[in-house]
């Protein structure tokens, strides 16, 4: 499992694969949590390329969010497609994890959080 990782402003942006499901949710979760532990606990998770997600994928994102907060950071989910956004809203994942339209907004959200801390 490999991700595209880049920097936007000073934040790491991880671009997830097109599918986040039972088949790869554990691997994605493990890799992102390792990244949080080893590199940065502030993470922008780019969902714009995710075309398919299920409840296992949502649970993986929630687990990554918890890990980031445990290390003093946070994650922001950026750019979900309408189909993914619908599932996020149905399950109220957006009550506990920030979900924004794009990477620029995610970066602004993390910057504001850092300044408030």
């Amino acid at each position, binding site marked *: 499992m490999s991700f595209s990782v880049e920097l936007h402003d000073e934040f790491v942006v991880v671009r997830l694969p097109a*599918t986040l*499901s*039972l*088949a*790869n949710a554990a691997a994605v979760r493990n890799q992102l949590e390792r990244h949080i532990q080893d590199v940065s606990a502030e993470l922008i998770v780019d969902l714009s390329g995710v075309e*398919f997600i*299920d*409840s*296992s994928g*949502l*649970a993986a994102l*929630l*687990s990554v969010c*918890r890990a980031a907060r445990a290390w003093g950071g946070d994650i922001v989910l950026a750019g979900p497609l309408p*189909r993914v956004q*619908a*599932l996020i809203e*149905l*399950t*109220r*994942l957006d*009550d*506990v994890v920030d979900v924004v339209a794009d990477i620029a907004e995610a970066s602004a959200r993390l910057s504001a959080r850092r300044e408030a801390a």
Partner: protein
Amino acid sequence: MFHELLLIGAVPEAGHEAARWVEGGCSRFGLRGPAVEQLSACVVEAVNNAIEHAYGTIAGDVQLTLSAEAGVVTVVVSDRGPGPRDSEVLAPEPDAPRGRGRWIMDQWCDSVELQKGAFGFRTILSKQCAANAASISGRPDSSQLTRLF
């Protein structure tokens, strides 16, 4: 009535394949859009439940049938497991680690029926995906069997 069958191995990739199969089957008969996507998301959860709860690490098959009539699409997901002990559906807390699958099915399908028996366990999901029968162009009683994995 349009009717298709899918026999799929109980492997983690099966849910996504089942979703593509449902959307492909609906598309061939002129059904697409958010309602079909919601139905396919529910089918994924039913298939995932079969993989995780009916078989675990044991090899097995999940059978799906898809039928469409008068704009209503019905998908039956069958496995050889005993089914859930508790059929009560509670809204999961947003930060709950598990328990979203059945909730998603209940919210996005018009009907969710669970059947237990000597055959195993079935989840029957139905959803209105088109306004009327005119939007379904399938041949009466046509059928097709697909085997994956």
